[in-house]
Structures are given as structure tokens and as C-alpha cells.
């Protein structure tokens, strides 16, 4: 427990900054909603945009003139930010001991490496939940302030549930790379590259349906935001497989961290 507490303390500042940025992000996104919805003129223009353009903006087939569509559109950026946080946190929390050369302090204590990873992942997961919950709360608040139509509380909760799963995937990916890579210091950069790669891949598959199989490589596409806001549906299989992916990556992190030579 001392380790969990220590990690939480070490990341306190970073979590506060991320939280503020997320809340501000939601706010600044929601402020624009009236222009999209009020006179429908903006929406008409947007509807006339070529499909590729709409896809690139992240709207796809969403109807951004109503709150559910607009929020889903905004959410695609929220989830990107949360994923970046999770990926960097996952790689950083593992790699920092070697980066700061503190392995000779921590790993000669009477704790196993398994316990070290468990404590670090627990501390990280707690941070993911806090960031998710605060962003969720901010979303409720600002949606309520601007929404004049149908209540979308269920949609919001479902969206943030998928976000938590995506956060978990990238957390595990970051931790896995930090434990696996020879030079763990660079794992943050690699995690971020993979993350952006996955994001861009998701954009590409939005443009054309021929490449949909590539969506397997992009956690951002594991959950269909469209179906979620239209039918309030969340695929149980997608949830299960995504969680399985996160667990497998985390198991890999344990495996490779135990085998690792701590050379500093």
C-alpha cells in the first residue's frame, strides 16, 4: 500500500493538470454547441460537406445539430486526450524507476517485482477513474447547461464507460512497452506513436468502408459511437474483447518486467 500511496503522490500534480485540461476541453467544446444547433444553418452547411470531410472532422454520420450527435462528435476528442493520458501514464509509471535510476532503491526492498507492478497499475487505474469521473461530471454539467432537447444522460454514461475501457487498453499498452523495451525510457514516445497511428487509422477507415478490418488495430474504433447514441447500444462482445486485450497486455507487462535486467 505504501507503494500505491507513493505513486499517487508522485502523480498528484500531473493528475490535477490533466483534470483541469479535460474539464476545460469539455467546456470549450460545449460552448460551440449553440452555433451548431440554433438556426440549423451551420448544420445545413455541414451536411453539404463531402463525406470525407465530415469523416476527417470526426462527425461521420452523426447529426451534430442535436445534443446526442454533437456530444458524440466532441467525445471523439475527449477520448483521444484520455487515451494519451493513459498511455503516457502506463509507460511512465513503469519506466520512471529506470529513468531516474531508482531501481537500486525500490527493487532491493523486500517486495517482489509482481507486487511493484501491481501497486503501480493500481495507482494508475485509480487515476484513470478519477480523470474519467471528473470529465464525466463536467460533461453532465455543461451538457445540462446547453441542452434544450432530449436528455442524453444514458448516452453520456455509456460513452464514458467505453472511454474507461479504452483508457485501460492504452494504460496496459504503455506498461507493456515499458516492461518489454530494452530502453524503457523511449516507451512513452513509442506508446504515443502507436496511439496516434491507431487514431489516424480510425480516420482512414471512416473514409472508406473497404478497410474496416483495420479497425481491429485501432481501439478507438472498438465501440461504435453511432450505434451508441442512436440506439443506446453497447456491444457486450466488444467490451469483453477489449477488456481481454487490456488484461493480456498487462499480463505481458508482468511477464517481461520480471525477466528484466535492471542495469540503469
Amino acid at each position: 500500500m505504501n507503494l500505491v500511496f507513493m505513486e499517487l503522490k508522485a502523480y498528484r500534480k500531473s493528475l490535477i493538470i490533466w483534470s483541469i485540461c479535460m474539464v476545460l476541453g469539455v467546456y470549450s467544446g460545449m460552448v460551440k454547441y449553440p452555433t451548431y444547433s440554433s438556426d440549423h444553418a451551420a448544420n445545413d452547411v455541414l451536411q453539404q460537406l463531402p463525406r470525407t470531410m465530415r469523416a476527417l472532422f470526426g462527425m461521420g454520420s452523426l447529426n451534430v445539430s442535436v445534443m446526442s450527435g454533437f456530444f458524440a462528435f466532441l467525445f471523439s476528442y475527449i477520448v483521444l486526450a484520455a487515451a494519451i493520458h493513459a498511455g503516457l501514464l502506463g509507460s511512465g509509471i513503469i519506466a520512471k524507476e529506470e529513468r531516474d535510476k531508482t531501481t537500486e532503491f525500490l527493487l532491493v526492498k523486500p517486495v517482489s517485482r509482481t507486487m511493484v507492478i501491481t501497486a503501480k497499475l493500481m495507482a494508475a487505474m485509480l487515476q484513470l477513474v478519477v480523470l474519467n469521473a471528473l470529465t464525466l461530471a463536467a460533461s453532465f454539467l455543461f451538457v445540462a447547461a446547453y441542452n434544450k432537447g432530449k436528455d442524453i444522460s444514458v448516452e453520456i454514461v455509456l460513452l464514458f464507460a467505453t472511454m474507461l475501457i479504452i483508457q485501460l487498453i492504452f494504460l496496459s499498452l504503455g506498461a507493456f512497452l515499458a516492461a518489454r523495451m530494452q530502453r524503457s525510457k523511449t516507451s512513452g514516445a513509442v506508446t504515443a506513436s502507436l496511439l496516434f497511428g491507431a487514431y489516424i487509422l480510425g480516420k482512414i477507415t471512416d473514409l472508406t468502408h473497404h478497410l474496416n478490418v483495420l479497425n481491429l488495430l485501432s481501439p478507438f474504433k472498438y465501440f461504435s459511437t453511432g450505434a451508441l447514441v442512436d440506439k443506446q447500444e453497447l456491444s457486450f462482445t466488444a467490451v469483453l474483447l477489449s477488456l481481454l486485450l487490456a488484461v493480456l497486455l498487462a499480463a505481458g507487462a508482468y511477464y517481461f518486467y520480471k525477466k528484466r535486467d535492471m542495469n540503469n
Partner: protein
Amino acid sequence: MNVIEIHHLTKNYGKSRGITDVSLSVAEGEIFGFIGPNGSGKSTTIRTLLGLIHPASGTAAIFGKSCFEHPEIRQQLGYLPSEVFYYENMRVLDLLNYSASFYKKDCSKRIRELAAVMNLDLTKKISDLSYGNKKKVGIVQGLLHEPKLIILDEPTGGLDPLMQQKFFELIREEKRKGATVFFSSHILSEVQKLCDRVAFIKEGRILRQEKMSDLQENTYKRISIELNQETRPEIFQLEGISDLQIKNKMVKFIFKGNINQVTAMIAELDLRNLTIGEPDLEEIFLHYYEKEG
């Protein structure tokens, strides 16, 4: 009972660094010196023993158990790394308390005691400490839980002579309390005063292990003489003289053996100047162990 058992330990990483077939054992209550030049494999051996590095072959155990399979055995271990790095934005006391939180005992009194002896300011931030002060934090951190096995990797680097004395006194005190000490250094004289037994390591191999009492009969001195007239090499044919260099009126050599023999020989000479110093380990290796080994 042997507190440390290392059998045929081999680890190669990088190109040249590593250890080959290292075997040694340290008995309970001993102070054991592990001597070798920089880069000879001292730290690699220690890191493998502590469970930081996986050996390619061989075994290493403390209290009969491997640190990989039984990390809890490290309850009894105190370790001072050769280069101390800690969480930079913590205060000294917070770091020491954090370190103490891993052990199943209350260490707060011992932390205060050790800090007082080492003259360490507990309120400072780690990032504001000098190299020597970080080393002090390392010493306190390694001893605060009163471990039964203390492993010190080049402990005196960065400490001024006064602090070194206090540190050696601390180590002797721990030994009196029954602790076993494993101590690496590249300075033989530093170890000579403290250790019961030493092992010499070079280029990743143990050259030999000796009891300090055996080694002390052989003191090593580097002697430089400046004479008033030219001299002949035959005068310096004493047994124990090695690396003899004669340049005009200057004579230099390393001497191993009874110091009275060499002073008697020097007394016969017409001297302008004389210096007697400690040869470094490299020289001892080069001129004695390599030939004999």
C-alpha cells in the same frame, strides 16, 4: 552458516562488461572486502546477488535463498549502491520514512540516530543535496532497518575523510551487533583496515580470495628514491621488489614483504629524497597476482 553464497555466477552483457564463473561465500558476522578496479565486475556481481540482474548461469543466494524467488528475504538486507539516486523532489526524511515503510519494524529512532552521526540534514530536498550528502542519505537508508546483511558498493566515494571515519565506525558497530558486511572497493588500503577476508576480481573473474591476516603480512609499498649519485640495478635485487625502474639518479619500485628489509637496504644508500606511498590496486595486480596467478 554462510550468509552469502555465490556459485559459478556468469553474466555477460554489453560487449566487454560482465562476470565469468564467480564463486564466493561470506560467513555470518564477517566483513568481506570485494576488491577490483573500476569496471571489473564488482557491481554486476552485487546486482545479480540482489536480484536486479538475472544471471546467465550459476546461482547467488543470501541467507540461502535467491532474491528472485524469495524477495522477502531482503527484509534482512541493507544496500548502498555505488551511485545513489533517489526521488529528486522528496525531502530526505520523507524518503527515509518511505524506505522504512517496507520493513516490518519502527525505524524512526534509528533514522534520527544515524542522521545525527552522519551529520545529515533531514529537512532538505534530495535534489538540493551534494554528491557527498546523497551518499550519506544512502548510508542511512541502507542501515536504518538494522539489517543482518549489509552490502556496500564503493561506499566511501564522495565522503570526506572525517565522514569516512565515522562511516567505518558505524560499520564496525554493526559488525559488533552481529551483522555481516559485504563491501566493494577499488582501494585496497581502505578495505585493509576493516575486512576479515577479501576477494580480488579483475575483468570479471575472481583472481583469489585471502584472509586479511595473510594479506597483512604482505604490505605493498610504492617506493621512489632520488639518489645523490648514479646507481646500479644490482643493489635492488631484494626479494619482493617488482616493477623496478631506474632512470639516472631516480629509482622507483613496488615492494611486497617485510618493510624492515627495504628500510635496511635504503639506509645503506646516499639519499636526496624518498617517498613511500600506497601502490594502487592496478599495480599490485599487474606485478604480483597476474604473475603468480
